């Protein structure tokens, strides 16, 4: 039983990162109807910026801020320079352009920072605290969970309580009507990409210290898992992304804990295929499907 609780807490902490990352995917999907396949590479690039600042100033918080700001800039840049021009050809063109971007970013990172894994220290203790004899969450896990949940809450407020959020939703839902009503759809798209990339940057900063360290391929698997999480929750639903992320985190934690770490990739694949074949719209799609 102790092991079960440990795996549960571990899964929740890992799931929070997948949730944040899936949220970034959902943000772009809602804004532009694109799955950003370059999300992982973009997050790694901003994490490199973050850790460069950390090692220069010694402050984790400055590094985190730098990563998030560079995420905002990178997201806006990618939308303005690439995706806007790939858009008219349809979603597959955007997928291919995003993959080209993955190659370019990973190669550039390799050229600038080298191909070896770089250490990325965690800002908090990663040893688990024991509560009542059960090894539970570590302070770092708490920080990850807290940060991810804060972002979710902030985004929820942004989308439901602010005029900008309303305009973004309008631009994504009915671009032509929004344009007639005076919403700058292009600007909303850029904002959506910038926000998503910033959330991705945060997720990158959270996940890198738990892995082998900084490397241009550090987020490849995380991206696939986050995509699975987003699909589990339904690409259209931010709440779904969070629930999907936590769920996938838990499932992977149990599979890793009880069956061994080698089986994790296979579990992701089986989960993804099962969800897509049984319920392609995700777990949170029932009401939406009836509307359409």
């Amino acid at each position, binding site marked *: 039983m102790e092991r079960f609780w440990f795996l549960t807490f571990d899964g929740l902490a890992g799931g929070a990162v997948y949730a944040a990352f899936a949220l970034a995917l959902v943000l772009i999907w809602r804004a532009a109807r694109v799955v950003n396949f370059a999300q992982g590479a973009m997050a790694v690039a901003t994490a490199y910026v973050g850790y460069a600042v950390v090692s220069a100033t010694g402050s984790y918080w400055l590094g985190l801020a730098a990563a998030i700001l560079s995420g905002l800039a990178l997201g806006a840049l990618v939308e303005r320079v690439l995706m806007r021009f790939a858009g008219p050809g349809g979603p597959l063109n955007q997928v291919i352009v995003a993959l080209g971007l993955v*190659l370019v970013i990973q190669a550039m990172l390799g050229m600038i920072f080298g191909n070896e894994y770089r250490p990325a220290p965690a800002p908090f203790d990663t040893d688990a605290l024991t509560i009542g004899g059960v090894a539970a969450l570590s302070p770092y896990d708490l920080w990850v969970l807290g940060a991810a949940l804060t972002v979710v809450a902030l985004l929820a407020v942004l989308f439901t309580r602010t005029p900008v959020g309303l305009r973004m939703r309008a631009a994504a839902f009915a671009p032509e009507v929004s344009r007639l009503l005076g919403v700058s759809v292009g600007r909303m798209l850029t904002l959506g990409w910038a926000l998503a990339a910033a959330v991705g940057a945060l997720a990158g900063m959270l996940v890198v210290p738990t892995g082998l360290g900084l490397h241009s391929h550090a987020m490849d698997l995380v991206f696939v898992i986050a995509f699975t999480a987003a699909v589990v929750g339904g690409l259209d639903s931010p709440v779904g992304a969070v629930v999907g992320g936590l769920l996938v985190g838990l499932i992977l934690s149990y599979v890793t804990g009880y069956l061994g770490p080698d089986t994790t990739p296979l579990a992701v694949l089986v989960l993804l295929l099962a969800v897509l074949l049984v319920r392609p719209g995700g777990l949170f799609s029932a009401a939406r499907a009836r509307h359409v």
Partner: protein
Amino acid sequence: MTTTPTETAPAPASPLRRLLPGAPAGREPRGSTLLRHLAVAVFVGTLVVLVTNQLAPYQNLQVARVCAFLCVTAGHTVLVGLNGQLSLGHGALMATGAYTVALTQQALDERAVRGWWTLPASLLAGVAVTALGGLVVGLAAARLRGPYLAGVTLAVATLVPAVTTIFTGVFNGEQGLSFPAQTPPAALGAYFQPERWLAWIALAAALLTMLLLANLARSRFGRSLRAVRDDEVAARLAGIPVARTQVLAFVVSAACAGLGGGVYAMLTATVAPGKFPLDLSLFLLMAIVIGGLGSLAGAVWGALLLVALQDLPGLLTEHLSLSAGLAQRLEGNLALAVFGLVLIVVMLAAPGGLQGGVRALTTRLRRAVRRRPATRRSPDR
């Protein structure tokens, strides 16, 4: 996938339509398509065989690698270019074929079964097993669209190599498997260059693949593939079984990837998961997009590009005098950055790819020469 009507209204019928050459105009050339393709295959084959005579061992290996990749890129072009299904998982399908060939060759060797037919037999086994894998992915793919399909195939590419570490007993984990190398038959003489023999085998596989696929593309099934790509609803109204066509396209494409993977494994007589990373799957897509998705000729450019991509880093570091640290950083990465950039530029500016450029150039040349009006079309379309 839910889409709002406002989005779908102005968009073209198929997302990939923009990449492809226009509808064929004018008459079809007369005569048997099969015979014409056969003649081209025999001509190209003879030419390459003659050329391999003059080449050094390493260059022959390069020819062999181009041929191995050609099997894969040709099948991939049929799937992405003709049928409009995006697959990022062809590297994993190559791995499936390669591992099947390795396991079959090992098993035959242990039982001391020898003979000229062992290699074709194990390649055939590789094709069959990979086609089966393609069937599984294809069944899922036929229900999925656009980014979902891309995501699933990306997951396949990322995760399938991990299978080798789960079943270490069969696949020997990260070390991989090795099997007896192919040696030239004694009839060719004792001093026959082994690399040249490998190039011949790979060439035979590539020519067979191209011949079959070129005929397939011109057949009724090929027309169904394109109809499904251009407009699923119209295709269904015309009585084409859309899902079955999509699954079959995946099976055909997977079979080609399996053959290519098997030949690729044969060239070094080893297989290991490190040879089939996620990057390979991305390269395959990149190669056929830069080569040109519209025709099988684009796949030839793609195969050449893939080999160039593998050899470029070595050439660069050899000919430029760089400091050791810089050379180590540039190794592989510089070529990748260049190719990624080219991929983006091609996608945004010249969706026809290299073959589109070649076609525009030949049309212009033909007009300039004005020997006859530019109505005759090249046979590869």
